[in-house]
């Protein structure tokens, strides 16, 4: 085994990111890398390229039993962990639950417009107090909560042929620049087609995102900013989307 140096590092780095070095060679490579941290970024970048191979296999659906088995373990482990960290979780659950109520109330009472749950304020304050002593990841959530305080949450219910067929869809503006279409029970569409979101300003439809209806629930980001008076619509288009709608909307709402 030759000694590791820059030349040998260059020679082995591709095999390293592909996880194709024998044990001993890998160990020497990693010792060299630890001693030369300036080369870590180069390895991370190359590793990202190698990692793309993970996206290439033909897609297969795991069995529902796999989900059941995993969730059985997770739920069993969550209970004691939940107990240990109850102070953090309680606030978080309240936060999420209250936001859920806000969505429902907005849809029913205001037909989807301008719902800001003032009751959330006190719960968020509680959560912020609890999170203060928690871990850094939870601190990130705290920042989101503060952001949510500063912004209004709005929802609008979509109607149309798919709604008549049982689909339940809303557009939610979670913050000023984050608009999401969320829906339950959308019908499936033929292969080679996609759902396309449009924001119609005046008479001009702007392409505003693509999504595939999947499972019982679907979420897609609306890429065009919206304002009052705009119309939002969903059409079924050829895969890849269209520059202009080519079919009638299956869902729509005026904001």
């Amino acid at each position, binding site marked *: 085994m030759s000694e590791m140096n820059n030349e040998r590092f260059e020679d082995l780095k*591709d*095999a390293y990111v*592909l*996880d*194709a*070095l*024998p044990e001993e060679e890998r160990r020497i490579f990693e010792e060299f890398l630890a001693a030369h941290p300036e080369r870590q970024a180069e390895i*991370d970048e*190359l590793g*990202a*390229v*190698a*990692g*793309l*191979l*993970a*996206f*290439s*296999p*033909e*897609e*297969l*659906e*795991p*069995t529902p039993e*796999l*989900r059941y*088995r*995993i*969730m059985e*373990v*997770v*739920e069993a*482990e*969550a209970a004691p*962990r*939940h107990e240990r960290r109850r102070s953090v*979780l309680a606030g*978080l*659950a309240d936060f*999420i639950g209250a*936001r*859920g109520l806000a*969505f*429902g109330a907005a849809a029913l009472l205001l037909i989807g417009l301008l719902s800001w749950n003032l009751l959330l304020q006190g719960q968020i304050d509680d959560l912020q107090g609890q999170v203060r002593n928690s*871990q850094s*990841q*939870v601190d*990130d*959530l705290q920042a*989101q909560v503060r952001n949510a305080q500063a912004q209004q949450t709005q929802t609008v219910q979509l109607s149309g042929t798919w709604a008549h067929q049982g689909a*339940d869809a809303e557009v939610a503006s*979670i913050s000023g620049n984050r608009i999401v279409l*969320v829906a*339950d029970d959308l019908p499936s569409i033929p*292969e080679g087609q996609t759902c396309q979101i449009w924001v119609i300003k005046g008479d001009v439809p702007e392409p505003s995102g693509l999504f595939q209806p999947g*499972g019982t*629930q*679907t*979420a897609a980001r609306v890429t065009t900013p919206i304002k009052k008076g705009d119309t939002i619509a969903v059409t079924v288009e050829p895969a890849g989307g269209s520059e202009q709608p080519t079919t009638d909307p299956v869902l729509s709402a005026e904001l």
Partner: protein
Amino acid sequence: MADRGRQYLILADEDLISLVEASDSEAFATLYDRHSRAAFSLAYRMMGDRQAAEDLAQDAFLKVWRGAGSYRVERGSVRTWILSIVHNRGIDQLRSHASRRRTQERVEASAPRSQPSEAFTETWRNSQRDQVREALNTLPAEQLKILELAYFSGYTHVEISELLSLPLGTVKGRMRLGLKKIRNFFESRDAAVPR
């Protein structure tokens, strides 16, 4: 409509991981639903049968559940992180003695890109996947074969050189050229390598 479930649906993966670290099982379930297909597909590609692939996917997702705190956003997306866990655990298993014989059989049965349609006929569901597919399609068969033997089957460069009766330098060279070609594919389109 299940409002609580809906709230999880609109959270970003990074938010969900933070919740998982705080033992939120519903956040974990949302992550599972988003990424289980990709994870299982990779596991199946590596292990070669459904049962072994499900065992590997279960092992990997429980590691996600128990080790969410080790995720670092600066190292890549949550999806990439989950797939790297599947890959690393899969490599460990493939390198065990019991698995190696099975992999050997699969290697011997396969030929370089002799069935490209089998590998790529599935309709890919998002643009990232489309881009990766297109990038891999630009590789010469001999380069792709070596990348696949290393990445999916867990062979070291020395073992690949023995399997294919190629000089070790040739194997290294094809690895280098293959990865370079994938990176050039994205750079030529002014696109960042997905992470």
